[in-house]
């Protein structure tokens, strides 16, 4: 183990913290996951509006939940006006 494994001169004086958090997939936090019944869904996008992870994707017209990030908080299920979001147990990996 060398005295200093780095050259101080090449170390920046301060850390610049600009990389997006999106590289941190929080899906692993879930113990339950939301399942949308697309037939009953009215595309009102209330689930998009109230998701704290901003992980409901609108682009396709249907509310697509990005399971890479969804923490399974079940807010979408609570706020959906037509109750078409059901929380199901996460299968243990």
């Amino acid at each position, binding site marked *: 183990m060398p005295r200093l494994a780095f050259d101080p*001169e090449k*170390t*920046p*004086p*301060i*850390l610049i913290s600009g990389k997006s958090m999106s590289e941190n997939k929080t899906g692993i936090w879930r113990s339950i996951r939301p399942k949308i019944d697309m037939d009953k869904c009215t595309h009102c996008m209330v689930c998009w509006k109230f998701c704290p992870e901003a992980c409901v994707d609108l682009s396709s017209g249907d509310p697509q939940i990005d399971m890479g990030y969804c923490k399974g908080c079940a807010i979408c299920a609570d706020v959906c006006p037509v109750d078409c979001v059901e929380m199901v147990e996460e299968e243990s990996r």
Partner: protein
Amino acid sequence: MKKVLMGNHAAAIGVKLARTDVVSAYPITPQTQIIEMLNDLDESGEFGGRFIKVESEHSAMAACLGSATAGARSFTATSSQGLAYMHEMLHWVAGARLPIVMCDVNRAMGAPWILWTDQTDSLSQRDTGWMQFYCSSNQEILDSVLMAYRVAEEVLLPAMVVYDGFTLSHTYEPVDVPDQKLVDKFLPKLKNEYALRADKAEAFSALPSPKEYYRLRARMDHDMGRALKVFEEAGKTFEELFGRRYELIEPYRCEDADTILVVSGAPASTARVAVDQLRKEGCRAGLLKMRAFRPFPAQALRDFVRPGMRLAVVDRNYSQGHHGIFCEEMKSALYSLEKPPEVYGFIAGLGGGDITPELLSEIWRDTDEGRADAAAPNWMEDAR
């Protein structure tokens, strides 16, 4: 051109000449005239920057954290209780590598309440990552503000210009006020490549890993070391422009001296009188004036000392439970020498007690004639 200025006004004029962008400060004796002059310059339009009149010293340094992060040249001034109230922010802005310059007008620390000067307030900030330069005259105060910005902005570390409360701050004496154009040459506009840019989504001071933190502190140590050279180069450039030379440590009549007084601040000026007096009495006395305390000029001291030399270090401060602070750091810096000189530590003038030529001569003689204690601090109360 020369003007009669009190030390506090010399500091304020230095801040104006440096074209400082943002000043944020809170009043405290014996610093208030800095604030009052900067306020007058601000209201009369002579000071181009913004003067934020904050609600406390903790907030004063926090405002500097904000303005310096935006890349603006920032300044504050305080003393004793106010400097101590900033302590958390001193650690913070040094870690954030912000080139803030602050004047600390030395005033002893309470309790009990105490108005007069001693160095325990500034020296007890020695572990916060701030550079510290000590002044012995009002001319040095003005010049040190300019020097401090030059060095701070080169190594991206904050710097304290420290001078004696009342003895310099409130005392009037002639000061050469440098020409603005020359100052602009010495101190071009600050371009901080690490400053916050409104169009770049970046966070400042976010939580690192221990390894990243360790490397940040190692880089800081590297830059603090670099600051020694940067200060000396800046001192040469300053002499070319303004005719006055500043160095980390400044010997006086030491060439053939065996016992040398090591003094900082206004007492270092009085010490010349004592040394001249001792010389008249046939003593081979010398004076080493300490200007830089952080970065501590360890190598410069090691080069200066000669075996058999005796150093009488005068500390107008005290680290309870150990020793006078200049003495302690001097011993640590010289420890690794083959034949280190004898170092004796004297505690004088705490709470603003006068440090007279008579007291300095007695310190010199005690050291020269082997009456001083080499290990424990020598408490030297002035007779008056």
